[in-house]
């Protein structure tokens, strides 16, 4: 499992090379996309970490297969990562329902979840994901992630992002406490040399609450961190 973290990345790459299944102009061809939304180095004090947040999808207008993976790599090993494999179905003009599997991988224990969520665009252009998870042992979690884009110019774009996690019950092993567990908010300023290639700098703030914060204090980790980011956003 040393290189286990590569599996989700490889899975993404494989879906992205799915050839066009069409020669003629049918309206609804199979289209795919591989998007490195965040591919960055973060710095907290003297500690650095590599962070990825990658989406891949393949499918037609109404039905798509989504793979989402995010995680962190530091001190020469994968710290935390998750992979989601979701079936996505368009249900309204701007919203898809997504259902499927999520796996969390960390030192303590690997967990599996059933995922059910909504992904789409809210009024005022917030790209939003709201997902409900049910774990193997009946534990539950809710994640909300939303992102906005503020254009200084057509190419210089500031993108605030906000994420909040809520857990249904205490899970000491994984350091997740009942209720509001943590929030994360990031601010990334990117320059789109092309639509598909944009380096960025940014800052990320993470804070834990309640029992989650207690668990962290017990294990001697910070419950509030501020990090600097430098990264690349690119897609195919």
């Amino acid at each position, binding site marked *: 499992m040393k290189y286990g973290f590569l599996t989700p990345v490889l899975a993404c790459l494989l879906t992205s090379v799915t050839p*066009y299944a*069409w*020669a*003629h*102009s*049918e*309206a*609804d*061809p199979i*289209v795919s*996309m591989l998007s490195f939304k965040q591919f960055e180095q973060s710095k907290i004090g003297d500690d650095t970490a590599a962070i990825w947040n990658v989406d891949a999808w393949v499918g037609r*207008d*109404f039905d798509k297969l989504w793979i989402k993976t995010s995680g962190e790599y530091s001190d020469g090993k994968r710290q935390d990562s998750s992979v989601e494999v979701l079936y996505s179905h*368009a*249900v*309204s*003009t*701007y*919203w898809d329902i997504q259902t499927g599997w999520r796996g969390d991988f960390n030192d303590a224990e690997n967990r599996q979840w059933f995922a059910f969520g909504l992904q789409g*665009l*809210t*009024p*005022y*252009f917030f790209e939003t994901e709201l997902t409900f998870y049910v774990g193997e042992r009946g534990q539950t979690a809710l994640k909300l992630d939303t992102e906005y884009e*503020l*254009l*200084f*110019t*057509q190419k210089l774009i500031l993108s605030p992002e906000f994420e909040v996690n809520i857990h249904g019950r205490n899970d000491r092993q994984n350091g997740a406490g009942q209720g509001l567990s943590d929030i994360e908010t990031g601010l990334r300023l990117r320059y789109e040399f092309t*639509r598909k290639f944009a380096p960025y700098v940014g800052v990320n703030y993470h804070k834990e609450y309640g029992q989650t914060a207690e668990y962290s204090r017990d294990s001697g980790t910070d419950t509030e961190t501020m990090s600097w980011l430098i990264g690349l956003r690119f*897609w195919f």
Partner: protein
Amino acid sequence: MKTTHYSPSRRRFVKGAAGASALIGIGGVPLTIGAENTPKMKSPEVMRGRHFDLNIGYQAVNFTGSNRIATAINGSVPGPILHWKEGEHITLRVHNHLHHDSSLHWHGMILPSGMDGVPGMSFAGIKPGSYFDYAFQVQQNGTYWYHSHSGFQEQTGVYGAIVIEPANPDPVSYDRDYVVQLSDWSDQRPEDIYSTLKQRGDYYNFKHATVSDLWQDIKNKGIAQSWADRRMWNEMRMSRSDIADVTGYTYTYLMNGNTPEQGWQGLFKRGEKVRLRFINSAAMTIFDVRIPGLKMTVVAADGQNIEPVSVDEFRIGVAETYDVVVEPSDDRAYCVFAQSIDRSGYCRGTLTPNLDWQAEVPAMDYSPLLAHRDMGMAMSGHDMGAGAMQGMDHSGHDMSGMTHNMHMGQHSDMNMQHAMHKMPVEKPAPAGMGSQRKIAHVNTEFGPQVDMRSQSPMDGLSDPGIGLRDHQERYGRRVLRYSDLRNLYQTEDRRDPEREIQLHLTGNMERYMWSMNGIPFADAEPLQFKYGERLRIVLVNDSMMTHPIHMHGVWSELETGDPMHIPKKHTVIVQPGSKISYLVSADAVGRWAYHCHLLYHMPGMMREVHITEQGDLS
């Protein structure tokens, strides 16, 4: 912008054109007068006669500084100008040298269904390495064009002009005659453009509102008003700058195959009347055309003579044609300027007495922004069309849309027609004046595939169109409107319509899906017309894009307000959030295509029209 090199494809005369087809001169040279001095730009060849050999094949081109392979007819982009005579029987042997099926469609020609060149409707298409013989009698005159109806071959160069000499004396007098064919070229593969749009609908739009636009607005109007102005767009998740799906970011705009740097050239002598036959052969680009310093007299629309109208500027939708006559009175060069609807680029030519003279190229006009009316929302009482304000539809409908969508394949236009039949049966309004019926959104319009429904669409007839509405006040330019078009001759079929069909142009910009009544072509039943019937079609644009809609086989007789002089068109622009109506005489039995002529809208926003002796079989 981009540097351009000479394309090797152009000047090569084509050896494949055998038979009686004679090559006469170079296309840009007047059709009526011999060449005095040969222009330096590229021009398609002119082919005359009754028998034509056309070869669709691969051709190396270079429009942008990069070498690309085009699909060309007889080795050139555009293909040769075909010069026909009204009344003659012509044959065209079209060879396909591509690795894919191909076809040629004679756009705007009235001909038997089997000769129309639409694979899957009129014939099976032309297989690689094979040929097809087209044969038909030319029953009309004027300016038309032809193009491939297979895949996205139109984008990569399979198009050319048709000029038909009238059998009777031409009501238009002129000394010189030029084809001015406008088009768009991209170095990107068209399949890649299409999938890029599916990945990100606004990929090519670089005119989004920025923070400084917001700041300007706040300074000028205050925070409250700026917020209010943006509110609806924000709530509906739509961009006011969404004018063109594919823009000058990837397109190089061409005039007779010449890039803006090269420019096309046409010669005149002072005092001469010059006829310019404008054809929009672009895949996705609507152009606004003007010649600074010259009034243009529009004498024909879509090949059909109209009562002359003098204008300074006109919009030409994809697939439309306009013939104009200009009379340059000065001994100077004039710029023929065609800017894209979103002002992301232009193509240009020069009318000049001397080929060494260059006219000043004007700056492009301001970039237009969509307004509330472009979403079919009346903002004041008098704006309201026949469809009364129904208020914005909301979630209840959306839910029904969701369920409907789950089995969308089972829905069809038949449902829609039945829905129409169930409505209180009122006699359609008389011919020429347009529809009086209410605008109704059928249930198939609700679902993920549709992002907007016009609640009170305005009549698009007298609307110059997005970005042109203030050109009179702002620049003093008289802009052509559809309401200016009156047939030069009297209406032939003076019957009132027996029935009306209301069709809604629908789509979802974000998902890049296009349809009619919310149903894409693949899931739709054909529209059934009864042979001989006279009917009215009301097109309602439930989107913010400008759609040029083309009906094959029969004329679209645009109701511009004078029942005795209804102009005949083959392609009709439907303005964003607006409606327009035209009459159709179903006088040609067969299966005909009916679609938006924007190439990447066409796969979804299309219907088959089936004209039979029996009419509606259901």
